[in-house]
């Protein structure tokens, strides 16, 4: 087996349960609060921290820079990369840049359409899709790129990167078969770990995990902290492949205002406890409530 290139890979390779967190870069240059949060609440508690890449097509500070700054502070980042904004030249180049900056974990994503964001007049690129991006990484690792020289031979690299390559999947999609087919392709293209879209239904997740037994890639179940009943309802309405069961919505509705954060944490922890036996890790998306992470980890009996 290959030498692990990151702590995250090391944990997963060792068959331990891995927890990852997530931060979103600011819209602007004021990067300190995000770094601070990551350091204060996530460092030492999670294996790595995902840094989103112009999430929901809302223009922000770049993921690569924030990943680099996290590394400086001793926090291992997962560099998220979407295909929306860069063609294959830029993607390959950014991968090399990231590597030279010490970034090893890369999560390959398609990316939300520009229509979802705040630059709706922008041109979508999508030169590669997520499978193609994984393939591009594999090529770089093999010492070539996606291009060809004049004779039609692959271009050789001077210095070769090595990544821990991730991808995502939506386990509770209304139509799961195409999700699984695509996951298979991502695995074939070289994906080494999977972080899922939010899951609130352990039974459905178990079913999904049974269906992908043949895909030999560790899965980190996605946990999005539900901050309120309103948010749960919004997700049911608008977020593809996410279904918050009525019982959870009801618990949030019933919770008095001052207890809401507590209930949120409880729900997240319960979900992790329930799904821990089914998968290899959990990916916590707190949407700014990073201060809750220690409690979640504790209540989920992960510490």
């Amino acid at each position, binding site marked *: 087996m290959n030498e692990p290139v990151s702590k995250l890979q090391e944990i997963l390779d060792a068959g331990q349960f891995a927890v990852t967190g997530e931060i979103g870069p600011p819209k602007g240059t004021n990067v300190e609060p995000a770094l601070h949060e990551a350091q204060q609440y996530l460092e030492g508690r999670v294996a790595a921290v995902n840094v989103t890449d112009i999430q929901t097509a809302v223009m922000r500070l770049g993921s690569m820079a924030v990943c680099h700054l996290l590394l400086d502070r001793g926090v291992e980042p997962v560099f998220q990369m979407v295909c929306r904004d860069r063609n294959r030249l830029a993607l390959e180049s950014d991968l090399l840049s990231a590597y030279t900056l010490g970034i090893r974990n890369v999560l390959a994503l398609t990316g939300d359409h520009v*229509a979802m964001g705040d630059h709706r007049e922008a041109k979508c690129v999508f030169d590669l899709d997520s499978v193609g991006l994984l393939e591009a990484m594999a090529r770089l690792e093999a010492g070539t790129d996606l291009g060809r020289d004049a004779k039609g031979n692959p271009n050789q690299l001077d210095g070769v990167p090595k990544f821990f390559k991730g991808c995502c999947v*939506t386990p509770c999609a209304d139509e799961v078969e195409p999700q699984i087919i695509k996951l298979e392709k991502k695995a074939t293209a070289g994906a080494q770990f999977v972080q899922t879209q939010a899951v609130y239904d352990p039974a459905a997740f178990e079913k999904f995990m049974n269906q992908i037994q043949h895909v030999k890639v560790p899965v980190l179940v996605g946990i999005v902290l539900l901050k309120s009943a309103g948010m749960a309802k919004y997700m049911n309405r608008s977020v593809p492949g996410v279904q918050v069961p009525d019982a959870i919505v009801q618990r949030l509705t019933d919770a008095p205002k001052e207890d809401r954060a507590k209930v949120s944490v409880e729900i997240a922890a319960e979900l992790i406890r329930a799904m821990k036996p089914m998968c290899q890790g959990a990916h916590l998306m707190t949407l700014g409530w990073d201060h809750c992470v220690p409690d979640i980890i504790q209540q989920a009996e992960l510490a």
Partner: protein
Amino acid sequence: MIVAERKPFDEIVEMVAPYKKVLVLGCGSCVTVCLTGGERQAEILASQLRLAGRKKGLDLSVDFDCITRQCDREFTENLKFDPAEYDAVLSLACGVGVGFMSGVLPDTPVLPALNTTFYGAGVAEGVWEEYCHGCGDCVLAWTGGICPIARCSKSLINGACGGTNDGKCEVSQDMDCGWHLIYKRLQELGRLDELRKMRPPRDWSKNRSGGVRRLSREEMAEIAQESAE
């Protein structure tokens, strides 16, 4: 066929503002079929421009005509009007026609009255949908005849992204997810194996990325050359 929609009227007015005598020229092909650029629309636009001109006190005279196709030289020779008599021709053809007419009428500005939008099919009365992107490298053989380049908002080639939701695209609830359609169709055809196949990064050089495209049918082009000699 090519589907187009009329430009906002104000934009058209601004375009013709520098001219006194304008010919609105319809095209009898695709844009007639999609109800945006045929003779009737030319008649209507001419009428609107005259009304607007009068309202604004402009010295503007507008006629209209329509030809079978604005993208072939032979058809441009049967105009009822002499375009040379006009300060500008406002074309209701797709961009192809506008561009081509610009070449045919070197001394007359040819202005576009339409926004050429896509290659589409009439899916219901008065409704057209994009079916093809003219990508230069057709994939319909393995996508059940449904084009992922045109009908997936992101032109993905390995399957739906995570934005697919109840068969709709994340861009809009009114938009079918192209990959959902492909999946359904391949399932019907018993050809989901096509979906499982890895699709390597596409060769976009056959698309616009390869620069201006041109088709020359050797057998015909040669004859044309010979006879030109």
